[in-house]
């Protein structure tokens, strides 16, 4: 019964929201506005579920002594930020902003910057001209890399133009093919969900 109600709600909303997209009636716009507001309310509840899941997973994993220090840092950080925000606010110079600017931003930037080291290492160990297509890929990558540097014009006046050509023709045609594929895939999946053919989102094995 529960599954049938969920399927009926999914079907009803799926069809109505699909139809309202093509309607210019004021009622359709009001419906869209109302659904958008409910969407945000539902998101707030989903956040509560996410928070509970995060705490539960970390507490469970902290039983492993090797994992414990990391899990403690996760939970302390997770608890500290809302406390700082609630007590001292979010204004410039507040403890929350200090932690955000001096801990979170540098840490995230550092992790992101590590990518450069992995790219450099991978370029040495994995980027081989084993075949004609691999060589083509390698040459295209070299042109793109140089075109995004300050020496591209100095090396050759046509290097930026060549890089633009790669972006505008081979790269874009491949990207468009992917986008069309994603679009068709999304359409098919949406129809399957709306019509109740695809039911994995309901959970369980039935």
């Amino acid at each position, binding site marked *: 019964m529960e599954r049938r109600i969920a399927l009926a709600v999914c079907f009803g909303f799926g069809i109505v929201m699909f139809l309202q*997209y093509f309607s210019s009636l004021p009622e359709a*716009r009001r419906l*869209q*506005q109302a*659904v*958008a*507001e409910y*969407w*945000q309310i539902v*998101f*707030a509840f989903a*956040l509560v579920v996410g928070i509970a899941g995060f705490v539960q997973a970390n507490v469970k994993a902290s039983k492993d002594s090797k994992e414990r220090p990391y899990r403690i840092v996760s939970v302390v950080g997770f608890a500290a930020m809302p406390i700082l925000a609630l007590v001292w606010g*979010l*204004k*410039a110079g507040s403890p929350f*902003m200090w932690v*955000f*600017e001096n801990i*979170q*931003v540098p840490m*995230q*930037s550092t*992790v*992101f*910057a590590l990518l*450069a*080291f992995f*790219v*450099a*290492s991978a*370029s*040495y*160990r*994995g*980027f*081989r*001209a084993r075949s004609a297509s691999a060589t083509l890929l*390698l040459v295209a*990558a*070299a042109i793109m*890399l*140089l075109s*995004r*540097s*300050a*020496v*591209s*014009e100095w090396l050759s006046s046509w290097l*930026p133009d060549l890089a*633009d050509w790669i*972006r*505008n023709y081979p*790269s*874009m045609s491949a*990207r*468009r093919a992917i*986008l069309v594929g994603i679009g068709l895939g999304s359409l098919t999946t949406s129809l399957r969900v709306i019509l109740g053919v695809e039911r994995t989102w309901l959970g369980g094995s039935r």
Partner: protein
Amino acid sequence: MKNFQSRHLVFLGLFVLIAVVMLIGGGSEVKVSPQTQKMYDFLDSLPRGSVVMVSFDHEASSLPEIRPIAEALLRHAYSRDQKLVGVALMAEGTLIGYRLMESTAREYDKNYGEDFVFLGFKPQYVAAILSMAESIEATFPEDYFGTPVGQLPLMEGVDNYQDVAAVMSIADGSFTTHWIEYGRIRHNLTVIAGVTAAMVTTYDPYLASGQLETMIGGLRGAAEYEQLIGVPGGGGRGMPAQTASHIYVLLMIVAGNVAWWMSRRKRDA
């Protein structure tokens, strides 16, 4: 030291190279690309007093690349006396966005509430974009500081996208796509973007179709824009390090291939 491998040498080489280049400092001149010029011309052509919505759709991790892009675009917009309405579709963009808008506004003696406002973060980006098409005030009843939006002088007469000249999405991911799909396609909102270099090819098809009006990408895009507005910034300062690291990666590719080719010859012999 016994676990020291070739990849560690590659890491060390890159670290030393970037550290040396950054310690030497300086900036570098770059040729302005037609795409960056188009962005400059677009912002320059907007009448003074036009309302431009700036959406900070990025995380803190991309700040070293995003900050120069955002600062260059904001400086140009302020210098043209455009009215900026800041929003964030990602929670982390909220704090960063306000600081960027406020710090650049100070350079041009712009006042909060009259020349720029910051409405803060709204969860569920699709719902937020669709909702603002109907009413910005209903979506953001209060600004970032809790002031009712109706009390902000800048927001007088700014009800929805029809009162906004363009939305400028500062993004490190796919959020600009949502502005295009729900803002541009459904409500004819003009979308412009400043994105990280890794995202440039993602948006090329939208740029070619005209659904994305114009875009600048990466540190190089920021450096080009800084040259156009005549205000040096992080883009130009970062270009030598980016150039050095790109050349280093290229050298690593060449070295790796030479080593692989030699080992194959040795094996075949």
